[in-house]
């Protein structure tokens, strides 16, 4: 009898405790559906080909060299590790207080590291600089020892078929930064990835040039042209969710996303520099390229959405204060794009009262 009582008591206590636990968890706010809940983007298993585009700077006493180089890579991702090769080449210009010159970059090496953090280790890296200073010709070559220089890639977005990232490299008298994109070869519709990657390279170069000039944020047509080109590249790639992505959320990766995110971040950090309509168009571009919204891949979406709502709310307050109906309209439309229904209702109510 005593044993039965203990069993009943145990069951009662357990059931009550479980019930309480479930109710507590059930009442907790659930996150909105997101395309990808991965904390860290990773490169899925398979054979990949990719490109690197860059801006770079080489510094020596009394001189600075700027330039751009472009790299290609092919590697295999298997079981969480990477193995492959890369190469790059480029040119630059040298400036000094009393001279000028040109630079040539060449390099190659191996791809290694975890699938969450590729490392491009240089086996051969040469920076040749030749020019004239104070009327005297000069030339010099920088060559870090093999294996001692590496470009670490920081992945920013990843699907099963495509990854994007940024990189920064700094060495003895050298620093550079740029963009990295790779595609899983098996998901390309055409066997040769070269044409696709050439289009990607050109797009990344143009996007980089676009973001270099903050004044071009006002160039909505130019931005839309870049987005159009990025969207046309979707057709060259087969959608594949075999690496464990949440299919229900259907995330997507637009190659312009990082560029748009850069522009949006600048605009939200310098709001006085952009009028309401310019901001509205940038919000639309962000929703179109997956920088914000349920299809966004990457960690920054919710942060951007919050900042957008805050900025739109501030602009609404100002528009109400001065009776600017057009600005209120833009806030209404912007709130609809970002899905801030509360803000939209507030703006609509304000419009009716004017």
């Amino acid at each position, binding site marked *: 009898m005593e044993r039965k009582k203990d069993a009943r*008591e145990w069951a*009662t*206590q357990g059931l*009550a405790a479980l*019930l*309480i636990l479930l*109710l*507590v968890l*059930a*009442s907790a*706010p659930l996150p*909105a*559906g997101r395309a990808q809940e991965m904390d860290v983007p990773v490169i899925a298993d398979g054979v990949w080909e990719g490109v690197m585009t860059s801006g770079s700077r080489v510094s020596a006493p009394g001189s600075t060299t700027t330039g751009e180089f472009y790299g290609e890579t092919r590697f295999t991702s298997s079981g969480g590790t990477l193995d492959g090769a890369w190469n790059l080449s480029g040119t630059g210009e040298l400036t000094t207080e009393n001279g000028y010159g040109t630079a040539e970059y060449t390099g190659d090496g191996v791809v290694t590291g975890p699938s969450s953090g590729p490392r491009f280790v240089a086996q051969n890296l040469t920076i040749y600089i030749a020019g004239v200073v104070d009327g005297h010709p000069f030339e010099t070559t920088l060559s870090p020892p093999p294996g001692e220089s590496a470009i670490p890639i920081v992945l920013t977005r990843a*699907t099963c*078929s*495509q990854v994007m990232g940024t990189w920064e490299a700094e060495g003895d008298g050298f620093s550079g930064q740029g963009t990295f994109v790779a595609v899983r070869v098996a*998901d390309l519709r055409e066997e040769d990835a070269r044409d696709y990657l050439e289009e990607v390279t050109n797009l990344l170069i143009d996007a980089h040039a676009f973001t270099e000039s903050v004044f071009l944020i006002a160039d909505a047509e130019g931005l*839309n042209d870049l*987005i*159009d080109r990025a*969207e*046309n590249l*979707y*057709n060259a*790639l*087969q*959608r594949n969710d075999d690496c464990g992505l949440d*299919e*229900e*959320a*259907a995330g*997507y*990766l*637009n190659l312009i996303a990082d560029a748009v995110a850069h522009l949006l971040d600048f605009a939200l950090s310098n709001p006085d520099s952009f009028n309401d*309509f310019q901001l509205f*168009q940038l919000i*639309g*571009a962000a*929703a*179109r390229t*997956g920088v*914000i*919204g*349920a*299809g966004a891949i990457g960690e920054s979406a919710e942060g951007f959405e919050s900042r957008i709502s805050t900025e739109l709310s501030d602009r609404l307050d100002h528009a109400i204060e001065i009776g600017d109906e*057009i600005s209120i*309209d*833009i806030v*209404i*439309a912007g709130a*609809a*794009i*970002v*899905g801030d*229904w*509360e803000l*939209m209702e507030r703006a*609509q109510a304000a*419009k*009716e009262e004017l």
Partner: protein
Amino acid sequence: MKRKQRFNMILLGIAWVIILAACSAEPTPVATPPPATEVADTPPPEVTEEVEPQTAEPERVELLLDVPGLQEIALTTPEDGVGPKPQFAWQPLDGATRYVLVVYTAEREPYWAWEGAETTVYLGGGDSAPAPDSAGPVLIANMAWAVMALDADNRLIGSSVLRPIAP
């Protein structure tokens, strides 16, 4: 009452209090989008019937944007059976120079957007019809969409309803 029995009763009492509180609690107060064209798994309500564009007395419909003076943009894409890469289409609006389209998930989160002067666009953009299995945004669940129109002065002049769409 023995201590164990008393403890059990307390646990059960706490559980029931939480149950009662959960049942009586108001849902998290979140402003909702226009409810007329509810998506989810149930068939959409009747409000998404087409409105005659020109001469008929306009019915009172719930546009996405509830702003006085907005003209209704008539959407023409079917509500279901459109596949994973549908073409969104709508009637042109007098005075409109640009349209803004937004696709929402069933939870009313923005999923994809587009801006342009045309009155048709494929999900994911692009110059031609995308293959059903191409990368980019894809319709694999019930969603909803709407279109806004602006004039040459960037004034908001039109809005559609929020219309369901399913593959």
